[in-house]
């Protein structure tokens, strides 16, 4: 096998990696804040919003992500009446499914983190005159991040691997190109290259989280 051949196999995979990273980044950036909103609703005393958040988390964690992707892409457009408004491009559909799914997981992680905050922290904040918003942003969330970081790190690595699922609706990411090459050339070697690519990205993600954990440990 020549280097030239390996390079010709690798170039499309790199292109696919761009798409993989796009799905990954959109999901990561949107599902963290959305997950925090879910956590706040899970903790809300308002019974409807609490019920809604519980149900949301239950459904999205209780069904396969693959099914959710298929449902968003093929299912939503078929809903009578609103279907036409819920017709997405492959990429958008993939992102919608991923953001909704990961918000549920991050919501659960944050719930645990929030429970780990000592009630005394809220009391000290109040007595010192902090507003509720300041208490959240300056006292609670920084401590919550520290508690949650290892779980978020795990979940983020899972997210990267899960992006391979979007190949099912034809989003052109790493695995999509690898499969094409395998079928075309009749060699499993592109799969090995794809694996190497995932490992490299994972290495970078893990490195960043290790740095973050260092920064947040006290």
């Amino acid at each position, binding site marked *: 096998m020549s280097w030239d051949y390996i390079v010709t196999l690798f170039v499309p995979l790199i292109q696919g990696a761009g798409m993989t990273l796009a799905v990954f980044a959109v999901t990561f950036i949107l599902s963290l804040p959305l997950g925090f909103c879910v956590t706040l609703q899970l903790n809300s005393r308002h019974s409807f919003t609490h019920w809604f958040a519980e149900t949301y988390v239950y459904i999205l964690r209780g069904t396969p992500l693959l099914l959710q992707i298929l449902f968003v892409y093929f299912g939503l457009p078929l809903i009578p009446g609103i279907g036409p408004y819920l017709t997405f491009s492959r990429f958008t559909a993939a992102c919608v499914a991923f953001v909704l799914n990961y918000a549920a997981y991050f919501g659960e992680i944050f719930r645990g983190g929030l429970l780990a905050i*000592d009630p*005394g*922290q809220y*009391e*000290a904040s*109040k*007595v*010192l*005159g*902090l507003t509720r918003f*300041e208490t959240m942003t*300056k*006292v609670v969330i*920084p*401590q919550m991040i*520290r508690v949650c970081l290892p779980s978020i790190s795990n979940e983020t690595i899972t997210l990267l691997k899960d992006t391979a699922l979007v190949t099912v609706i034809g989003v052109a990411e790493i695995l999509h190109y690898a499969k094409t090459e395998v079928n075309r050339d009749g060699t499993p070697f592109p799969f090995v290259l794809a694996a190497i690519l995932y490992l490299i990205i994972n290495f970078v993600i893990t490195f960043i989280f290790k740095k973050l954990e260092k920064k*947040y440990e*006290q």
Partner: protein
Amino acid sequence: MNSNNDNHVIRVEGLTKSFGDNQVLKDINFDVNKGDVIAVIGSSGSGKSTLLRCLIDLEQADGGTIEIEGRRLVSDGVHADNKEKRAVIAEMGMVFQHFNLFPHLSVRENLELAPKLRSVGTEREIEDRTAYYLDKVGLSERIDAMPSTLSGGEKQRVAIARALMMRPDILLFDEPTSALDPELTGEVLKVMEKLAQEHMTMIVVTHEMSFARSAASKILFMNQGIILEEGTPDEIFMNPKQPRTKEFLSSIER
């Protein structure tokens, strides 16, 4: 002691508080004058913490009146609006049994977070005050330390400095030395005695009878949700009127 009404920085009248069926405070009445050091004593469960927490709105009184420097937190069971409450709370600082330092912030950041957010002084003034109060509690060299690296006594002294940073007129202490190893209580009590000598108005819930005896201007003995007896340290320690007070004091002196 001056009992002139104008001198009252705290006035509590008919304060009541229940948790469910458990009436924890039953008709509490007392006044605090400027510069008073009030020691609140009594057995565990008598309602001392709840009383202190009602004064600073960590618990919400059911009935009665709480007046701080002429402004009402609660008036005949009716609570002030949130804005007024915030203004009233700002007159007070509180020191907790378990310190409640912000573990993710350094000593300096613990002290400066609230004054900077509330603009209690310019940035420069706040930084000067940090140096001043850390020196006062004897922890100047720990300014960049994280709380987890401090001893209990050091944590509590930081907590006192943090409360002082907001320039409160009144300091509330809820068993400030109860979570400390016995050999560390002295350093905290010393700081509190210094504040008392400087005429800081303080209410201190404590089991440290030697502190109550030497530093307090007035003792409140709480028993089952009421102030059963109040008086000067001499009156309470030398000559308690209530049998229950005698019993409590002898139980604690053992």
